[in-house]
Protein backbone atom coordinates (compact mmCIF):
# COMPACT_ATOMS: atom_id res chain seq x y z
CA UNK A 1 0.00 0.00 0.00
CA UNK A 2 1.35 3.38 -0.96
CA UNK A 3 1.07 5.85 1.86
CA UNK A 4 0.89 9.38 0.54
CA UNK A 5 -0.29 10.90 3.82
CA UNK A 6 1.51 13.96 5.07
CA UNK A 7 1.27 15.65 8.44
CA UNK A 8 1.69 19.41 8.65
CA UNK A 9 1.44 20.98 12.10
CA UNK A 10 -0.86 18.24 13.36
CA UNK A 11 -3.16 18.31 10.34
CA UNK A 12 -3.21 15.15 8.29
CA UNK A 13 -3.45 15.50 4.51
CA UNK A 14 -4.31 12.52 2.29
CA UNK A 15 -1.52 13.64 -0.01
CA UNK A 16 0.77 16.67 -0.26
CA UNK A 17 -0.87 18.20 -3.32
CA UNK A 18 -2.58 21.55 -2.82
CA UNK A 19 -3.66 24.49 -4.90
CA UNK A 20 -1.68 27.75 -4.73
CA UNK A 21 -3.74 30.64 -3.43
CA UNK A 22 -5.28 32.85 -6.07
CA UNK A 23 -4.97 30.36 -8.89
CA UNK A 24 -7.91 28.13 -8.04
CA UNK A 25 -10.58 30.48 -6.68
CA UNK A 26 -12.32 28.55 -3.92
CA UNK A 27 -12.32 25.42 -6.04
CA UNK A 28 -15.69 26.02 -7.69
CA UNK A 29 -14.38 26.88 -11.12
CA UNK A 30 -11.97 23.96 -11.30
CA UNK A 31 -14.34 21.41 -9.77
CA UNK A 32 -15.59 20.93 -13.33
CA UNK A 33 -12.14 19.59 -14.24
CA UNK A 34 -10.75 18.02 -11.08
CA UNK A 35 -12.37 15.88 -8.39
CA UNK A 36 -11.52 18.01 -5.36
CA UNK A 37 -11.77 14.88 -3.19
CA UNK A 38 -8.49 13.71 -4.68
CA UNK A 39 -6.52 16.74 -3.48
CA UNK A 40 -4.64 17.09 -0.21
CA UNK A 41 -6.04 20.57 0.29
CA UNK A 42 -7.66 23.47 -1.45
CA UNK A 43 -5.95 26.74 -0.59
CA UNK A 44 -8.35 29.57 -1.32
CA UNK A 45 -7.85 33.00 -2.91
CA UNK A 46 -6.73 35.67 -0.42
CA UNK A 47 -9.63 37.08 1.58
CA UNK A 48 -9.64 40.32 3.57
CA UNK A 49 -11.94 41.74 6.24
CA UNK A 50 -13.85 43.78 3.63
CA UNK A 51 -14.25 43.47 -0.17
CA UNK A 52 -11.27 44.65 -2.21
CA UNK A 53 -11.64 46.04 -5.75
CA UNK A 54 -8.22 44.95 -6.93
CA UNK A 55 -6.11 46.70 -9.56
CA UNK A 56 -7.08 48.16 -12.95
CA UNK A 57 -6.59 46.02 -16.07
CA UNK A 58 -4.54 44.68 -17.73
CA UNK A 59 -3.85 42.50 -14.72
CA UNK A 60 -2.12 39.57 -16.38
CA UNK A 61 0.56 39.23 -19.04
CA UNK A 62 2.41 36.30 -20.47
CA UNK A 63 6.20 36.16 -20.13
CA UNK A 64 8.72 33.58 -21.33
CA UNK A 65 7.81 30.34 -19.54
CA UNK A 66 5.66 32.17 -17.04
CA UNK A 67 3.30 35.03 -16.39
CA UNK A 68 3.03 38.30 -14.52
CA UNK A 69 -0.02 39.13 -12.46
CA UNK A 70 -1.19 42.20 -10.62
CA UNK A 71 -4.70 41.20 -9.60
CA UNK A 72 -4.44 43.29 -6.46
CA UNK A 73 -6.21 40.72 -4.28
CA UNK A 74 -9.74 41.39 -5.49
CA UNK A 75 -11.97 39.54 -3.05
CA UNK A 76 -15.52 39.63 -1.69
CA UNK A 77 -14.54 40.03 1.95
CA UNK A 78 -14.70 37.47 4.74
CA UNK A 79 -18.47 37.59 5.35
CA UNK A 80 -19.41 36.48 1.84
CA UNK A 81 -16.57 34.00 1.92
CA UNK A 82 -17.87 32.34 5.08
CA UNK A 83 -21.39 32.23 3.73
CA UNK A 84 -20.58 30.89 0.29
CA UNK A 85 -17.11 29.44 -0.13
CA UNK A 86 -16.67 27.43 3.04
CA UNK A 87 -19.99 25.54 2.66
CA UNK A 88 -19.01 24.78 -0.93
CA UNK A 89 -15.67 23.31 0.10
CA UNK A 90 -17.18 21.38 3.02
CA UNK A 91 -18.94 19.16 0.49
CA UNK A 92 -15.58 17.64 -0.34
CA UNK A 93 -13.26 15.34 1.51
CA UNK A 94 -10.25 17.62 1.32
CA UNK A 95 -8.58 19.98 3.77
CA UNK A 96 -9.44 23.66 3.62
CA UNK A 97 -6.69 26.24 3.97
CA UNK A 98 -7.90 29.83 3.90
CA UNK A 99 -5.46 32.42 2.61
CA UNK A 100 -5.79 35.71 4.47
CA UNK A 101 -4.69 39.17 3.32
CA UNK A 102 -4.85 42.58 4.91
CA UNK A 103 -3.53 46.12 4.86
CA UNK A 104 -2.89 46.30 8.58
CA UNK A 105 -2.45 43.94 11.52
CA UNK A 106 -6.02 44.74 12.57
CA UNK A 107 -7.34 43.63 9.16
CA UNK A 108 -5.65 40.23 9.47
CA UNK A 109 -6.81 39.77 13.05
CA UNK A 110 -10.40 40.57 12.13
CA UNK A 111 -10.41 37.87 9.44
CA UNK A 112 -8.67 35.34 11.63
CA UNK A 113 -11.15 35.91 14.45
CA UNK A 114 -14.13 35.53 12.11
CA UNK A 115 -12.70 32.22 10.95
CA UNK A 116 -12.18 30.94 14.49
CA UNK A 117 -15.39 28.91 14.61
CA UNK A 118 -15.37 27.91 10.96
CA UNK A 119 -14.61 24.39 9.76
CA UNK A 120 -11.29 25.32 8.18
CA UNK A 121 -8.12 23.34 8.80
CA UNK A 122 -5.37 25.92 8.52
CA UNK A 123 -4.84 29.59 7.78
CA UNK A 124 -2.25 30.79 5.31
CA UNK A 125 -1.22 34.36 5.98
CA UNK A 126 -0.19 36.30 2.90
CA UNK A 127 2.27 38.91 4.06
CA UNK A 128 4.08 38.77 0.79
CA UNK A 129 1.86 39.93 -2.02
CA UNK A 130 3.84 42.31 -4.23
CA UNK A 131 0.72 43.88 -5.70
CA UNK A 132 -0.75 45.75 -2.78
CA UNK A 133 0.80 49.03 -1.89
CA UNK A 134 -0.18 49.44 1.74
CA UNK A 135 1.18 47.07 4.34
CA UNK A 136 1.29 43.64 2.69
CA UNK A 137 4.74 43.67 1.30
CA UNK A 138 6.41 45.47 4.16
CA UNK A 139 5.37 42.77 6.62
CA UNK A 140 6.88 40.10 4.46
CA UNK A 141 10.15 41.82 3.67
CA UNK A 142 11.37 42.86 7.07
CA UNK A 143 12.11 40.15 9.65
CA UNK A 144 11.11 42.35 12.59
CA UNK A 145 7.74 43.25 11.02
CA UNK A 146 7.19 39.63 10.04
CA UNK A 147 7.91 38.52 13.60
CA UNK A 148 5.48 41.05 15.09
CA UNK A 149 2.60 40.34 12.75
CA UNK A 150 3.07 36.59 13.08
CA UNK A 151 2.94 36.86 16.86
CA UNK A 152 -0.16 39.00 16.77
CA UNK A 153 -2.00 36.66 14.40
CA UNK A 154 -0.83 33.51 16.17
CA UNK A 155 -2.24 34.84 19.46
CA UNK A 156 -5.71 35.15 17.93
CA UNK A 157 -5.81 32.21 15.52
CA UNK A 158 -7.72 29.06 16.45
CA UNK A 159 -6.29 27.06 13.56
CA UNK A 160 -2.60 26.41 12.89
CA UNK A 161 -1.08 29.19 10.79
CA UNK A 162 1.18 29.11 7.78
CA UNK A 163 3.11 32.32 7.10
CA UNK A 164 3.57 32.73 3.34
CA UNK A 165 6.97 34.12 2.56
CA UNK A 166 8.03 36.54 -0.12
CA UNK A 167 10.96 35.64 -2.34
CA UNK A 168 11.69 39.36 -2.77
CA UNK A 169 14.25 39.36 0.03
CA UNK A 170 18.01 39.02 0.23
CA UNK A 171 18.04 36.17 2.73
CA UNK A 172 15.03 33.86 2.87
CA UNK A 173 16.39 32.03 5.93
CA UNK A 174 16.11 35.18 8.05
CA UNK A 175 12.42 35.42 7.18
CA UNK A 176 11.81 31.74 7.81
CA UNK A 177 13.49 32.00 11.19
CA UNK A 178 11.49 35.09 12.14
CA UNK A 179 8.22 33.29 11.33
CA UNK A 180 9.28 30.23 13.30
CA UNK A 181 10.46 32.26 16.29
CA UNK A 182 7.12 34.08 16.42
CA UNK A 183 5.25 30.80 16.61
CA UNK A 184 4.16 30.13 13.06
CA UNK A 185 3.16 26.49 12.70
CA UNK A 186 4.42 26.18 9.14
CA UNK A 187 5.64 28.35 6.28
CA UNK A 188 4.83 28.37 2.59
CA UNK A 189 6.99 29.69 -0.21
CA UNK A 190 7.41 31.15 -2.66
CA UNK A 191 4.99 33.88 -3.46
CA UNK A 192 5.55 35.60 -6.80
CA UNK A 193 8.74 37.45 -7.71
CA UNK A 194 8.28 41.12 -8.53
CA UNK A 195 8.75 41.75 -12.22
CA UNK A 196 7.93 44.13 -15.03
CA UNK A 197 7.09 43.92 -18.72
CA UNK A 198 7.12 46.78 -21.19
CA UNK A 199 5.05 46.91 -24.36
CA UNK A 200 7.56 48.25 -26.87
CA UNK A 201 4.88 49.06 -29.46
CA UNK A 202 2.76 51.15 -27.14
CA UNK A 203 5.84 52.26 -25.17
CA UNK A 204 4.10 51.70 -21.90
CA UNK A 205 3.90 49.18 -19.07
CA UNK A 206 2.23 45.92 -20.03
CA UNK A 207 0.42 45.79 -16.66
CA UNK A 208 -1.68 48.72 -15.46
CA UNK A 209 0.00 48.33 -12.07
CA UNK A 210 3.43 48.68 -13.80
CA UNK A 211 4.91 45.85 -11.73
CA UNK A 212 3.48 42.40 -11.17
CA UNK A 213 4.33 39.04 -9.65
CA UNK A 214 6.14 36.51 -11.80
CA UNK A 215 5.03 32.90 -11.51
CA UNK A 216 5.09 29.69 -13.52
CA UNK A 217 7.89 27.33 -14.64
CA UNK A 218 10.25 30.29 -15.13
CA UNK A 219 10.60 30.71 -11.36
CA UNK A 220 10.88 27.06 -10.33
CA UNK A 221 14.66 26.86 -9.78
CA UNK A 222 14.51 29.91 -7.53
CA UNK A 223 11.65 28.40 -5.56
CA UNK A 224 13.41 25.04 -5.14
CA UNK A 225 16.54 26.80 -3.94
CA UNK A 226 14.60 28.86 -1.42
CA UNK A 227 12.67 25.86 -0.09
CA UNK A 228 15.96 24.05 0.36
CA UNK A 229 17.53 26.98 2.21
CA UNK A 230 14.48 27.47 4.43
CA UNK A 231 14.31 23.75 5.20
CA UNK A 232 17.84 23.92 6.54
CA UNK A 233 17.10 27.01 8.61
CA UNK A 234 13.90 26.00 10.45
CA UNK A 235 12.21 22.92 11.89
CA UNK A 236 8.60 23.83 11.07
CA UNK A 237 7.10 22.18 7.99
CA UNK A 238 7.22 23.86 4.59
CA UNK A 239 4.72 24.01 1.76
CA UNK A 240 6.62 24.56 -1.46
CA UNK A 241 5.40 26.17 -4.67
CA UNK A 242 6.64 28.03 -7.71
CA UNK A 243 6.20 26.70 -11.22
CA UNK A 244 5.04 23.18 -10.41
CA UNK A 245 3.75 21.68 -13.65
CA UNK A 246 3.88 17.94 -12.98
CA UNK A 247 4.76 15.25 -10.45
CA UNK A 248 8.49 15.47 -11.19
CA UNK A 249 8.46 19.14 -10.18
CA UNK A 250 6.48 18.37 -7.04
CA UNK A 251 8.92 15.63 -6.02
CA UNK A 252 11.82 18.02 -6.56
CA UNK A 253 10.26 20.36 -4.00
CA UNK A 254 9.73 17.51 -1.55
CA UNK A 255 13.30 16.32 -1.88
CA UNK A 256 14.39 19.91 -1.24
CA UNK A 257 12.44 19.91 2.01
CA UNK A 258 8.77 20.62 1.31
CA UNK A 259 6.12 18.57 3.13
CA UNK A 260 3.34 19.96 0.96
CA UNK A 261 3.36 21.17 -2.63
CA UNK A 262 1.06 23.63 -4.34
CA UNK A 263 0.19 24.08 -8.01
CA UNK A 264 -0.36 27.67 -9.12
CA UNK A 265 -0.12 29.21 -12.57
CA UNK A 266 -0.01 25.82 -14.27
CA UNK A 267 -3.68 25.30 -13.42
CA UNK A 268 -4.32 27.94 -16.08
CA UNK A 269 -2.34 26.04 -18.66
CA UNK A 270 -3.69 22.60 -17.83
CA UNK A 271 -6.73 22.57 -15.56
CA UNK A 272 -6.09 18.92 -14.71
CA UNK A 273 -2.57 19.57 -13.34
CA UNK A 274 -3.34 19.01 -9.64
CA UNK A 275 -4.97 15.62 -10.23
CA UNK A 276 -2.15 14.60 -12.56
CA UNK A 277 0.45 15.51 -9.93
CA UNK A 278 -1.32 13.24 -7.40
CA UNK A 279 -1.28 10.34 -9.86
CA UNK A 280 2.30 11.02 -10.90
CA UNK A 281 3.56 11.01 -7.32
CA UNK A 282 1.99 7.58 -6.81
CA UNK A 283 3.68 6.33 -9.96
CA UNK A 284 7.03 7.64 -8.72
CA UNK A 285 6.54 5.85 -5.39
CA UNK A 286 5.83 2.60 -7.20
CA UNK A 287 8.78 3.06 -9.50
CA UNK A 288 11.19 3.47 -6.61
CA UNK A 289 9.44 1.25 -4.06
CA UNK A 290 8.68 4.13 -1.71
CA UNK A 291 6.10 3.05 0.88
CA UNK A 292 5.74 6.25 2.84
CA UNK A 293 5.91 9.43 0.84
CA UNK A 294 6.91 11.41 3.94
CA UNK A 295 10.22 9.51 3.95
CA UNK A 296 11.51 11.45 0.97
CA UNK A 297 10.98 14.93 2.44
CA UNK A 298 14.24 16.87 2.59
CA UNK A 299 16.42 13.91 1.72
CA UNK A 300 18.65 15.74 -0.71
Amino acid at each position, binding site marked *: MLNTKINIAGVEFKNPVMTAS*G*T*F*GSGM*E*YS*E*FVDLNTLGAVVT*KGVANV*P*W*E*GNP*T*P*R*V*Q*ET*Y*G*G*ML*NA*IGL*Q*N*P*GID*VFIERDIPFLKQYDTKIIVNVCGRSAADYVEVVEKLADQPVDMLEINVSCPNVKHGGIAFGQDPKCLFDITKEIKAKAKQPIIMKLSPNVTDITEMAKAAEAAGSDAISLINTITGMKIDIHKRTFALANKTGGLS*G*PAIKPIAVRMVYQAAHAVKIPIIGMGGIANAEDAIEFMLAGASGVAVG*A*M*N*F*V*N*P*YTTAEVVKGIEAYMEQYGIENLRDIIGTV
Partner: protein
Amino acid sequence: MEHKKKEAAVVYRQQQIAAGIFDMWIETSIAPQAKPGQFISVYTQDKSALLPRPISICEVDRKNSRLRIVYRVAGKGTAEFAGYKPGQRVDVLGTLGNGFPLEKAKGKKVFLMGGGIGIPPMLELAKEIEGAASVDIIVGYRNNELFLSEDLAKYGQVHVATEDGSAGTKGNVMNAIASEGLEGDVIFACGPMPMLRAIKQYAADKGMEAYISLEERMACGVGACLGCVVKTKEVDHHSHVNNARICTDGPVYAAEDVEI
Protein backbone atom coordinates in the same frame (compact mmCIF):
# COMPACT_ATOMS: atom_id res chain seq x y z
CA MET B 1 -25.38 19.65 -20.59
CA GLU B 2 -22.69 22.17 -21.15
CA HIS B 3 -19.36 21.03 -19.82
CA LYS B 4 -15.99 22.74 -20.01
CA LYS B 5 -13.02 20.67 -20.91
CA LYS B 6 -9.53 20.89 -22.31
CA GLU B 7 -8.70 18.53 -25.10
CA ALA B 8 -6.53 17.96 -28.14
CA ALA B 9 -8.71 18.94 -31.08
CA VAL B 10 -7.72 18.24 -34.67
CA VAL B 11 -7.38 20.76 -37.48
CA TYR B 12 -9.88 19.89 -40.19
CA ARG B 13 -9.12 22.67 -42.64
CA GLN B 14 -7.30 25.98 -42.67
CA GLN B 15 -6.97 28.76 -45.20
CA GLN B 16 -5.92 32.38 -45.32
CA ILE B 17 -8.88 34.60 -46.18
CA ALA B 18 -7.31 38.07 -46.08
CA ALA B 19 -3.93 39.62 -45.28
CA GLY B 20 -2.99 38.15 -41.89
CA ILE B 21 -6.45 36.63 -41.36
CA PHE B 22 -6.85 32.87 -41.05
CA ASP B 23 -9.92 30.68 -41.16
CA MET B 24 -9.64 27.34 -39.36
CA TRP B 25 -12.12 24.53 -38.82
CA ILE B 26 -11.30 22.16 -35.98
CA GLU B 27 -12.83 18.88 -34.91
CA THR B 28 -13.58 18.81 -31.21
CA SER B 29 -16.03 17.12 -28.86
CA ILE B 30 -17.01 20.51 -27.42
CA ALA B 31 -18.40 21.76 -30.74
CA PRO B 32 -22.02 20.62 -30.27
CA GLN B 33 -22.48 22.67 -27.10
CA ALA B 34 -21.10 25.90 -28.58
CA LYS B 35 -23.30 28.98 -28.59
CA PRO B 36 -22.87 32.18 -30.61
CA GLY B 37 -20.79 34.69 -28.66
CA GLN B 38 -18.94 32.02 -26.69
CA PHE B 39 -15.21 31.54 -27.17
CA ILE B 40 -12.53 28.91 -26.78
CA SER B 41 -9.03 29.15 -25.36
CA VAL B 42 -6.44 27.94 -27.81
CA TYR B 43 -3.05 26.81 -26.46
CA THR B 44 0.28 26.89 -28.25
CA GLN B 45 2.58 23.89 -28.53
CA ASP B 46 5.44 26.30 -27.77
CA LYS B 47 5.88 25.76 -24.05
CA SER B 48 7.50 29.16 -23.51
CA ALA B 49 4.11 30.70 -24.37
CA LEU B 50 1.91 29.22 -21.69
CA LEU B 51 -1.24 31.27 -21.53
CA PRO B 52 -4.27 30.51 -23.67
CA ARG B 53 -5.29 32.62 -26.66
CA PRO B 54 -9.01 33.36 -26.40
CA ILE B 55 -10.71 33.13 -29.82
CA SER B 56 -14.40 33.59 -30.58
CA ILE B 57 -16.52 30.88 -32.09
CA CYS B 58 -17.24 31.96 -35.64
CA GLU B 59 -19.36 29.05 -36.81
CA VAL B 60 -20.55 25.71 -35.45
CA ASP B 61 -21.08 22.48 -37.40
CA ARG B 62 -22.86 20.39 -34.80
CA LYS B 63 -23.44 17.42 -37.08
CA ASN B 64 -19.72 16.93 -37.71
CA SER B 65 -18.67 18.25 -34.31
CA ARG B 66 -16.58 21.05 -35.79
CA LEU B 67 -15.91 24.65 -34.82
CA ARG B 68 -14.76 27.43 -37.08
CA ILE B 69 -12.46 30.15 -35.79
CA VAL B 70 -11.28 33.16 -37.74
CA TYR B 71 -8.32 35.03 -36.31
CA ARG B 72 -5.74 37.67 -37.07
CA VAL B 73 -2.04 36.90 -36.65
CA ALA B 74 -1.18 39.25 -33.81
CA GLY B 75 1.89 37.67 -32.22
CA LYS B 76 3.66 34.49 -31.26
CA GLY B 77 0.64 32.28 -30.58
CA THR B 78 -1.53 33.15 -33.54
CA ALA B 79 1.54 32.93 -35.80
CA GLU B 80 1.98 29.34 -34.60
CA PHE B 81 -1.69 28.51 -35.23
CA ALA B 82 -1.46 29.93 -38.75
CA GLY B 83 1.07 27.23 -39.62
CA TYR B 84 -1.16 24.32 -38.57
CA LYS B 85 -2.07 21.80 -41.27
CA PRO B 86 -5.11 19.51 -41.51
CA GLY B 87 -4.77 16.55 -39.15
CA GLN B 88 -2.51 18.45 -36.79
CA ARG B 89 -3.32 18.73 -33.09
CA VAL B 90 -4.62 21.95 -31.59
CA ASP B 91 -5.19 22.21 -27.83
CA VAL B 92 -8.40 23.94 -26.86
CA LEU B 93 -10.39 24.65 -23.71
CA GLY B 94 -14.06 25.38 -23.95
CA THR B 95 -16.67 26.30 -24.46
CA LEU B 96 -16.19 29.49 -22.46
CA GLY B 97 -18.31 32.45 -21.50
CA ASN B 98 -21.96 33.14 -22.14
CA GLY B 99 -23.21 33.79 -25.62
CA PHE B 100 -25.33 36.61 -26.97
CA PRO B 101 -28.89 36.71 -25.57
CA LEU B 102 -30.63 35.45 -28.71
CA GLU B 103 -34.08 35.84 -27.17
CA LYS B 104 -33.68 39.64 -27.21
CA ALA B 105 -33.96 39.55 -31.00
CA LYS B 106 -37.54 38.20 -31.10
CA GLY B 107 -39.78 40.52 -33.10
CA LYS B 108 -37.13 43.24 -33.14
CA LYS B 109 -35.21 45.08 -35.81
CA VAL B 110 -31.72 43.77 -35.13
CA PHE B 111 -28.31 45.26 -35.89
CA LEU B 112 -25.39 42.84 -35.87
CA MET B 113 -22.27 44.99 -35.78
CA GLY B 114 -18.73 43.72 -36.20
CA GLY B 115 -15.51 45.64 -36.50
CA GLY B 116 -12.36 43.99 -37.91
CA ILE B 117 -11.50 40.84 -36.03
CA GLY B 118 -14.76 41.33 -34.09
CA ILE B 119 -16.67 40.23 -37.18
CA PRO B 120 -16.25 36.43 -36.80
CA PRO B 121 -18.69 35.86 -33.89
CA MET B 122 -21.40 37.65 -35.89
CA LEU B 123 -21.62 34.72 -38.30
CA GLU B 124 -22.93 32.02 -35.94
CA LEU B 125 -25.06 34.69 -34.29
CA ALA B 126 -26.62 35.65 -37.63
CA LYS B 127 -27.26 31.98 -38.33
CA GLU B 128 -29.00 31.32 -35.05
CA ILE B 129 -31.11 34.43 -34.62
CA GLU B 130 -34.78 33.53 -34.96
CA GLY B 131 -37.95 35.54 -35.25
CA ALA B 132 -36.36 38.96 -35.70
CA ALA B 133 -38.35 41.58 -37.62
CA SER B 134 -35.23 42.34 -39.65
CA VAL B 135 -31.50 41.65 -39.49
CA ASP B 136 -29.03 44.29 -40.64
CA ILE B 137 -25.41 43.18 -40.51
CA ILE B 138 -23.09 46.16 -40.35
CA VAL B 139 -19.42 45.33 -40.69
CA GLY B 140 -16.33 47.51 -40.67
CA TYR B 141 -13.05 46.64 -42.41
CA ARG B 142 -9.70 48.32 -43.01
CA ASN B 143 -9.90 47.90 -46.79
CA ASN B 144 -11.70 45.93 -49.48
CA GLU B 145 -10.63 42.53 -48.16
CA LEU B 146 -14.17 41.83 -46.97
CA PHE B 147 -13.61 38.53 -45.17
CA LEU B 148 -16.77 36.64 -44.10
CA SER B 149 -19.07 39.15 -45.82
CA GLU B 150 -20.33 36.53 -48.30
CA ASP B 151 -21.10 34.06 -45.51
CA LEU B 152 -22.91 36.78 -43.59
CA ALA B 153 -25.00 37.79 -46.62
CA LYS B 154 -26.82 34.44 -46.37
CA TYR B 155 -28.42 35.51 -43.10
CA GLY B 156 -29.22 39.20 -43.45
CA GLN B 157 -28.66 42.47 -45.26
CA VAL B 158 -24.93 43.25 -45.15
CA HIS B 159 -23.75 46.87 -44.94
CA VAL B 160 -20.05 47.51 -45.33
CA ALA B 161 -17.81 50.31 -44.11
CA THR B 162 -14.10 50.53 -44.91
CA GLU B 163 -11.51 52.79 -43.36
CA ASP B 164 -9.92 53.54 -46.71
CA GLY B 165 -13.24 53.92 -48.53
CA SER B 166 -12.40 51.13 -51.01
CA ALA B 167 -15.78 49.45 -50.43
CA GLY B 168 -19.09 50.57 -48.95
CA THR B 169 -19.26 53.63 -46.75
CA LYS B 170 -15.92 55.32 -46.04
CA GLY B 171 -15.31 55.27 -42.31
CA ASN B 172 -16.59 52.95 -39.62
CA VAL B 173 -19.77 51.07 -38.77
CA MET B 174 -21.34 54.18 -37.21
CA ASN B 175 -20.79 56.06 -40.47
CA ALA B 176 -22.45 53.18 -42.35
CA ILE B 177 -25.56 53.38 -40.14
CA ALA B 178 -25.79 57.12 -40.75
CA SER B 179 -25.12 57.08 -44.49
CA GLU B 180 -27.56 54.23 -45.12
CA GLY B 181 -30.18 55.63 -42.75
CA LEU B 182 -30.56 52.34 -40.87
CA GLU B 183 -32.89 51.99 -37.93
CA GLY B 184 -33.10 49.27 -35.34
CA ASP B 185 -34.26 48.27 -31.86
CA VAL B 186 -31.48 46.08 -30.57
CA ILE B 187 -27.73 45.83 -31.25
CA PHE B 188 -25.38 42.87 -30.92
CA ALA B 189 -21.76 43.94 -31.38
CA CYS B 190 -18.15 42.86 -31.22
CA GLY B 191 -15.12 44.91 -32.18
CA PRO B 192 -12.45 47.29 -30.96
CA MET B 193 -13.09 49.32 -27.80
CA PRO B 194 -13.60 52.70 -29.55
CA MET B 195 -16.35 51.09 -31.65
CA LEU B 196 -18.01 49.55 -28.60
CA ARG B 197 -17.91 52.89 -26.78
CA ALA B 198 -19.52 54.59 -29.77
CA ILE B 199 -22.21 51.91 -29.86
CA LYS B 200 -22.90 52.24 -26.16
CA GLN B 201 -23.38 56.00 -26.60
CA TYR B 202 -25.46 55.58 -29.76
CA ALA B 203 -27.75 53.02 -28.12
CA ALA B 204 -28.23 55.24 -25.08
CA ASP B 205 -29.08 58.24 -27.28
CA LYS B 206 -31.56 56.25 -29.37
CA GLY B 207 -33.04 54.31 -26.48
CA MET B 208 -31.92 51.01 -28.02
CA GLU B 209 -30.78 47.86 -26.26
CA ALA B 210 -27.15 46.95 -26.97
CA TYR B 211 -25.21 43.79 -26.17
CA ILE B 212 -21.47 44.06 -26.64
CA SER B 213 -18.71 41.46 -26.49
CA LEU B 214 -15.59 42.55 -24.57
CA GLU B 215 -11.93 41.54 -24.66
CA GLU B 216 -9.39 41.46 -21.88
CA ARG B 217 -6.11 39.68 -21.11
CA MET B 218 -6.90 36.27 -19.68
CA ALA B 219 -5.00 33.62 -17.76
CA CYS B 220 -7.43 30.91 -16.67
CA GLY B 221 -10.46 31.57 -18.89
CA VAL B 222 -12.72 29.91 -16.33
CA GLY B 223 -13.25 32.58 -13.68
CA ALA B 224 -10.61 31.55 -11.17
CA CYS B 225 -7.77 34.08 -11.53
CA LEU B 226 -9.72 37.37 -11.63
CA GLY B 227 -7.41 38.59 -14.37
CA CYS B 228 -10.01 39.56 -16.96
CA VAL B 229 -12.39 41.93 -15.22
CA VAL B 230 -14.48 44.84 -16.47
CA LYS B 231 -15.85 47.65 -14.33
CA THR B 232 -19.57 47.18 -13.83
CA LYS B 233 -22.30 49.57 -12.81
CA GLU B 234 -23.70 47.16 -10.23
CA VAL B 235 -21.74 45.14 -7.70
CA ASP B 236 -20.91 41.80 -9.35
CA HIS B 237 -22.29 38.65 -7.80
CA HIS B 238 -18.96 36.88 -7.51
CA SER B 239 -16.49 39.27 -5.89
CA HIS B 240 -19.05 41.74 -4.53
CA VAL B 241 -17.12 44.66 -5.97
CA ASN B 242 -17.74 46.44 -9.28
CA ASN B 243 -15.53 44.12 -11.28
CA ALA B 244 -17.05 41.23 -13.22
CA ARG B 245 -15.06 38.47 -14.89
CA ILE B 246 -15.29 38.74 -18.68
CA CYS B 247 -14.43 35.06 -19.20
CA THR B 248 -17.33 33.77 -17.13
CA ASP B 249 -19.86 36.56 -16.61
CA GLY B 250 -19.26 37.85 -20.16
CA PRO B 251 -17.81 38.25 -22.68
CA VAL B 252 -21.20 39.67 -23.73
CA TYR B 253 -22.71 42.39 -21.56
CA ALA B 254 -25.61 44.78 -21.84
CA ALA B 255 -23.74 47.98 -22.78
CA GLU B 256 -25.42 49.96 -20.01
CA ASP B 257 -24.13 47.55 -17.35
CA VAL B 258 -20.42 48.09 -18.01
CA GLU B 259 -18.14 51.10 -17.61
CA ILE B 260 -15.99 51.05 -20.71
